[in-house]
């Protein structure tokens, strides 16, 4: 198990380094640089100074070496857009994205597994209804879901449409601030979780239905195990394997989806920050965001694998061997 974790951690480090370096070099060789943000009125001296500040007057390779040397000491350079060090900016944005993504995963899991067990264990109009709803939800990806929910929220005034907190949030006491956050959370979370929970529901429903047809369930039924125990204790545990296998993939999809949701609902997360940085060619900010994004990805896939190992002893044995 330790060897497995060490191997995965090494892989994560390589992934983060690779992603950040690629982002840095790509931004560097892209046409245009951050000096275009100075506006047309900038003097030659300002442009030269800015280029020197971001090491744009040196070769891409020299810049990378310098940046990598500092990055090893967790100094990710400065952002032009915000005129501040990159590290705290990325950390704050990453936290916001993590809150959003984590809430979405929890919501999708609760909704998806709950309704999946319901529709997978019976064969009546309720199951058919759940199946139909989830079929439509699967066809509403985050872009459409966030637009639709924003429309509904704006029309009815039930929920705030954009942002993560109200304008006066900084003056609030923390319980008030927390409830303000909780008020802003449901819309983006739902937009992100809706198609995902539908995917989970379909998977859970199918795998549970399959598990219920296996001989060991028949054997348990013959022993007189109640139907409830049969579904929840015997069949469900086996059916979980299919769900846990998809978590790793879901994380990538979640990160992709969270960009759209953050953009539409003005959630100050990593996706928005990276988008701004890319457009402005804010080179160190791009690299920092890429590093954080790939770190999330590594954590996500690792969590997926660990979940799989937790429910499937065969995977566990294969990894320790």
């Amino acid at each position: 198990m330790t060897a497995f974790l060490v191997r995965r951690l090494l892989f994560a480090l390589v992934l983060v380094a690779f992603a950040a370096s690629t982002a840095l070099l790509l931004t560097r060789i892209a046409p245009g640089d951050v000096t275009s943000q100075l506006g047309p009125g900038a003097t030659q001296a300002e442009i030269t100074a800015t280029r020197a500040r971001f090491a744009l007057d040196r070769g891409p390779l020299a810049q990378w070496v310098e940046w990598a040397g500092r990055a090893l000491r967790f100094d990710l350079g400065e952002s032009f857009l915000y005129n501040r060090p990159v590290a705290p900016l990325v950390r704050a944005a990453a936290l916001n994205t993590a809150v959003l993504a984590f809430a979405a995963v929890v919501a999708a899991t609760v909704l998806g597994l709950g309704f999946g067990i319901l529709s997978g264990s019976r064969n009546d109009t309720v199951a058919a209804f759940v199946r139909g709803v989830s079929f439509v939800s699967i066809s509403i990806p985050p872009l459409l879901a966030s637009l639709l929910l924003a429309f509904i929220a704006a029309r009815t005034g039930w929920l705030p449409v954009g942002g993560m907190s109200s304008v006066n949030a900084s003056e609030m006491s923390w319980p008030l601030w927390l409830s303000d956050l909780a008020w802003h959370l449901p819309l983006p979370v739902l937009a992100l979780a809706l198609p995902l929970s539908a995917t989970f529901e379909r998977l859970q429903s199918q795998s549970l239905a399959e598990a219920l047809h296996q001989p060991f369930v028949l054997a348990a039924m013959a022993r007189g195990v109640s139907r409830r125990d049969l579904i929840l204790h015997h069949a469900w545990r086996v059916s979980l394997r299919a769900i846990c296998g998809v978590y790793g993939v879901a994380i990538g999809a979640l990160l992709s989806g969270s960009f759209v949701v953050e953009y539409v609902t003005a959630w100050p997360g990593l996706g928005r920050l990276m988008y701004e940085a890319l457009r402005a060619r804010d080179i160190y900010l791009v690299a920092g965001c890429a590093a954080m994004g790939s770190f999330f990805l590594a954590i996500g896939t690792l969590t997926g694998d660990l979940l799989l190992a937790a429910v499937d002893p065969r995977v566990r044995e294969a990894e320790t061997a």
Partner: protein
Amino acid sequence: MKRAGIALVATVALVALLAPFLAPNPPEQRFSNLLYAPPTRVYVRQGGFRAPYIYEWRVVSRLERSFRESRVRPVALRWFTDGRLVTADPANNAPLLLLGADAYGRDVFSRVIYGSRLSLALAAIAAALAVIVGGLIGAIAGYAGGRLDDLLSRISEFVLVLPAMYVALALRAVMPLVLPAASVFILLTLIFALFGWPIVARGVRAIIASERQRDYALAARAAGAGPVRVLRHLLPAARGYLTVQGSLLIPAFILAEATMSYVGLGFPDTTPTWGTMLQDAANVTLIVDAPWILAPAAAIFSVVLAVNLIVQGTGRAPVQLER
């Protein structure tokens, strides 16, 4: 269910094909006194029934974007004139706006129809490219085995694990931000195909790897067939898989185009695609006042739903993680 899906896809494709005939107005035409005008109401009764006619929209307040019908004079619709199915006489200043008008006073309905052409063509070409490249690479990996297989599989696994939207965004953003529509089309096609091929390759590899152990493949090799010839025998086994994957990629790519254009990294604003049209919807107060600008979202939904309906019929779970 499957039939309904196929019918829906066929309808959308037909509409895209016949866009110049079906659209009541040219997609670029701006009706400058009809910014955000609501959908035109079509009447068929005046005393008794008569041929469909409409009324002219008159601006009540530009600021509040409110309009009223000027009931003075009904405007008859003209059928099969100027190569269009139905339109209103331009002389009357009362265009037929079936889904209202957008920020520039352009006909949303006509733009959705015209927009489907670029959105669908882009997605279809990118999906075809991904299927061809992925199929070939998967076939080579599955047939060759060993080192080459390892290498190709690792590469495709690496691309698969990337959060596609971010990398696509980064790749697009490092290109010049303003490009003509044709360059954007080629660029997006290539970027999308880049993310599509590994999905295809992985499945084809598995099919070919198991298929080459079968007797008929061994027989072909024993008869002296070279790798290319054997592969030609093996590839039909992957046909079903390729069809399903190819059709799943299309809605994913339509959505990717929409996302890119929505955030301003896709086609130029003037080019009608479903994505560029949705840019108007970025302003929430506008969605409330003029919900018809969400029409492209409905169009995207119908295509995604249609493909899910088709794929479900083939016995595959409609598991479509957004990529």
